[in-house]
């Protein structure tokens, strides 16, 4: 029997599920290997039991915790799909602000948001078996993860930094433009797409294991940048734990 897989989402932009759909012809080939049994964005169907659940989005209220726990119960393997599920992603920017004052500013003390708390990654509530980082995820990495899970191998993420991929692509170093780049400490796997596009690495894939902070500080100093510059940069995708 084909493995039964499903896609679920909580608080997020659905860009990671869209990135799966954007695999287009490969997505069609995928259907030869797996059975998609639940995917609310494009299907009406619901499934009682799944082999693999891919879950997008972060969690910020009790009803969502219950729904997540229910998905966990139905699934043999649960995968965090994308930055919001993995680290609470850009949603976690609200950790930088007082949540109750945000609620008052928006809803004039309405009871509507009483149950809403600061967003957390999936792993704060359930066991997460594997994770696909990034905002959005990389389609190829999704396929590689799925492949590993189907053949019963533990999925692996690159253990080196974006700098490595950037150098392999022979892109000019962002620091030479006196711009802070999170490439040296961010987990690779994105083929340095943002740097290729002329932007900098904003760290959406979270920190690499054992980031080497001493040389990084030195790079900052050489370029006249301060720790405050770098902290500001981290406050986009890495409010909570930096993907560790």
């Amino acid at each position, binding site marked *: 029997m084909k493995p039964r897989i499903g896609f679920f989402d909580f608080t997020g932009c*659905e860009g990671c599920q869209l990135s799966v759909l954007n695999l287009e012809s490969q997505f*069609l080939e995928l259907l030869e290997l797996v059975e998609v049994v639940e995917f609310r964005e*494009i299907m*009406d169907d619901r499934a009682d039991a799944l082999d693999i659940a891919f879950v997008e989005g972060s969690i910020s209220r009790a009803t969502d915790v219950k729904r997540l726990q229910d998905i966990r119960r139905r699934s043999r393997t649960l995968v965090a799909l994308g930055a919001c599920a993995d680290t609470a992603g850009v949603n976690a920017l609200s950790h930088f602000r007082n949540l109750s004052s*945000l609620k008052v500013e928006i*809803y004039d003390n309405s009871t509507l*948001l009483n149950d809403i708390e600061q967003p957390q990654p999936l792993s704060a509530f359930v066991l997460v078996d594997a994770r696909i980082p990034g905002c959005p995820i990389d389609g190829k990495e999704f396929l590689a993860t799925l492949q590993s899970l189907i053949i019963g191998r533990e999925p692996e993420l690159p253990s080196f930094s974006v700098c490595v991929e950037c150098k392999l692509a022979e892109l000019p170093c962002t620091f030479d433009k006196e711009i802070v780049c999170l490439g040296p400490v961010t987990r690779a796997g994105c083929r340095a797409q943002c740097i290729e*596009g*002329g932007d900098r690495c904003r760290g959406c894939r979270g920190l690499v294991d054992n980031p080497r902070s001493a040389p990084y500080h030195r790079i900052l100093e050489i370029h006249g940048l301060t720790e405050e510059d770098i902290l500001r940069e981290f406050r986009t995708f890495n409010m909570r734990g930096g993907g560790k």
Partner: protein
Amino acid sequence: MMKITIEHLTRLEGHGHLVIDASNGKLIECRLDIVEVPRFFEGLLQGRHFSDVAPIVARICGVCSNSHSLVSLAATEQALGVDITDQTKGLRTLLAFGEILQSHLLHLYFMAAPDYLGVSSLLPLAKKRRELVMRALRLKRLGNEICEVIGGRAVHPVTLCVGGFSSLPETTALQNLRRRLVDALPDLEATVELFAGFTIPSFSRDTEFLSLTAENAYPLDGDTLVSSDGIRVPVAEYQTVVEEYLVPHSTAKFARASRDTLMVGPLARIKNGLRFLSPMGRSVAAAVELDPATLNPFKIVLARLVEVVHCVEEGIHLIDALLQQGLRRETPQVMPRAGHGAAAIEAPRGTLIHAYEYDRNGCVIHADCLIPTAQNLANIEADLRELIPTLLDLPREDLSRQLQMLVRSYDPCISCSTHLLNIDFV
């Protein structure tokens, strides 16, 4: 006595429940509960540098990340007094076409078509009607290819920056795109044939239709808001005509303009700008009987089809113009300054407005955004209230299917609508 609750509506973006309560042929209650968790984006932008704003707001929505980026850049450029070149305008318009294509085609084939083909999703047809599914994926790929060539990737673009582009597409990539657009014409024809063959439920309800208007062009961008009730104001004055308000069952704000309900999106654009459609777009509109008198919200699906054809045809011409001029590397000069900017774009689902106020260091003091789906929510509920009494004789399942089709026809993006709410920092 009949109570229908459909939790987590399917084949749309984001989370909503439909709650209906009727007895003795009378509708007692009808609500579209919006249960998506708000993300307070406008609050999160406070204090952020102008170069961070577009990449952050892109994350409001995966399916329209390019629209959010484009409108954000336009608002920031206005605030900082930055002019953009014709080349930048052309490339950004092409990117907007790409996004409309991928979003509309995702909706047409994966969300709407299953209703008319009598299946729960397109996936079971992968074997039986492989050609249809392949065509759906080929066309969707085309939209994404445009976004990838111009924006660097399909979701959350990486080549856009305040003042222009940080990286330009290769000429060969543009030439290739042009060829792909031309090659897609037979697929488009087959798509038009497919949708023209569907029986669209008949229903109509008059409402106010609001969109941008452009000088002698289909209203995909522009700096004036117009409506069928006679609104005509500069985008900067949007708050004087569109009012947002809270309802107890929704974490998205509802909106109204001249009357209680308001529709934005493909049908509103076609009603306000039919004569500016491309020639092929116009003939498809005629073939599927869409005209300024159309009041049937189920027909928004067909309006989307017309816009797909329009964007492909206009896209070909736009690429020709860009290739003829030749792409030149530009280095935008942007200096921070205090200022206010408001800009609008027609996103796939309708008029999207961002307005920012910056301090003299180029950091956000205040941000405000008006989201298409939020503007449509009251309209969807009003449609449902009028439609339900006419369907109460139907078996429960048929009734519920038709109501979901109505909600779906708006292609609501609930993830988007709850993630931007008005905040006033005073």
